[in-house]
């Protein structure tokens, strides 16, 4: 028979697995919903339990009725446990999302690819998509203070100034010091690494050799 807190535990086990993955697995909408429902049910139970006491005495004294006190405590602890599981699950995911934003991935695009590109289905919840968008804006605003330093750029000095790249998906025309290049799918270019670093991180280009 399922116990209170079992669904929450499943969420945390999901989160634990997520920590070791490079991508973000689909959001567990059903589990989250059932944990939230559990909390609502528990709250209702607690209110019902307390009602007769509040009506008669105006307050509840645990020492006169230890059995009810025990039930209420179990009830309260179950809610608290569920809350902790929910928060930990979401925090693990937002931590991961922040990392992805900092490493320059196009998170929303990435999550759509994972689910096979079906429109409307994403591995993020709508709230998480919102979070990523706003966090991305924040990061952009922060980086805007130092226009001459790329804060999310690689810390490794490049070995070669110029590299071969292959275009994985159409990225349109970009301007470089040596003129404009039109990046169409499957074409190859010999370009300056600094010009295309962003595009490689975003998955438009692949570095060769």
């Amino acid at each position: 028979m399922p116990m209170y807190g079992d669904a929450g535990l499943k969420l945390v086990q999901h989160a634990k697995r997520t920590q070791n993955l490079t991508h973000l697995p689909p959001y567990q909408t059903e589990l989250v919903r059932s944990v939230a429902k559990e909390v609502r049910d528990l709250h209702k139970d607690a209110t019902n339990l307390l009602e007769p006491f509040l009506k008669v005495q105006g307050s509840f004294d645990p020492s006169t009725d230890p059995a009810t006190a025990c039930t209420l405590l179990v009830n309260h602890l179950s809610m608290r446990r569920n809350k902790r599981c929910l928060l930990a699950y979401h925090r693990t995911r937002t931590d991961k999302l922040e990392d992805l934003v900092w490493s320059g991935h196009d998170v929303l695009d990435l999550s759509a690819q994972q689910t096979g590109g079906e429109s409307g289905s994403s591995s993020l919840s709508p709230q998480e998509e919102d979070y990523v968008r706003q966090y991305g804006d924040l990061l952009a605003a922060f980086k805007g203070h130092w226009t001459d330093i790329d804060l999310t750029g690689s810390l490794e000095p490049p070995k070669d100034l110029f590299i071969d790249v292959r275009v994985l998906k159409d990225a349109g025309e970009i301007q470089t010091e040596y003129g404009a290049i039109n990046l169409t799918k499957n074409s190859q270019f010999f370009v300056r690494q600094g010009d295309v670093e962003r595009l490689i991180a975003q998955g438009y280009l692949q570095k060769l050799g």
Partner: protein
Amino acid sequence: MSYYDLDAILTGAEKIPCTFQLDVPELGYLDNNPGYTLKSGTKVLLPLWLAEMLAIADMGDHQNPDKSFIAFDLPPAVGKDVMAALKADPRSVPIRNQSPNFYNLAKHMMDLAEERELHAVVRKTFLTRAADISLHARKSGGAVSKGEGSNLGIGAAGEEFLRGLDEWERILFRKAHDGARSTKQWIEGIKKRY
């Protein structure tokens, strides 16, 4: 240990053998009997997050200030048999099979109960095993995936040992392993540059 720490939360799910000290009409479901009164003296397995607070909560009974809702026993993972085995040889016990969060669990039980022996045994266990973990971490090869058969010098017994590490020891192993590897890479990088 943080509120958001997943291992801490998972430790909370470990089951503790408990005995109820009073009749509770509403809690029959804890003993798979919803709708029935949970009788005083009933033995149930409760998750640590529940047992911990029930065991220390004050019942408000002024005649017996020490009495709480439940009495509890040590879970088998940190019970007599395991302790005896650890005393004999800390390295030969795969503590992960007892609990993936063995040390966390032991820590919680020590907080709840006066168990001097548990403390001594767990402490010695960690010290002995940590030395071995660091040894294995330095020996295992450059591959990121640990415990592959091709690793030099670990041998079957070593792999067996590494499989039995609990979460905390695994973190230790990974840190020791990555640390040794990064140092090696750094030194090689310096040699190349000059």
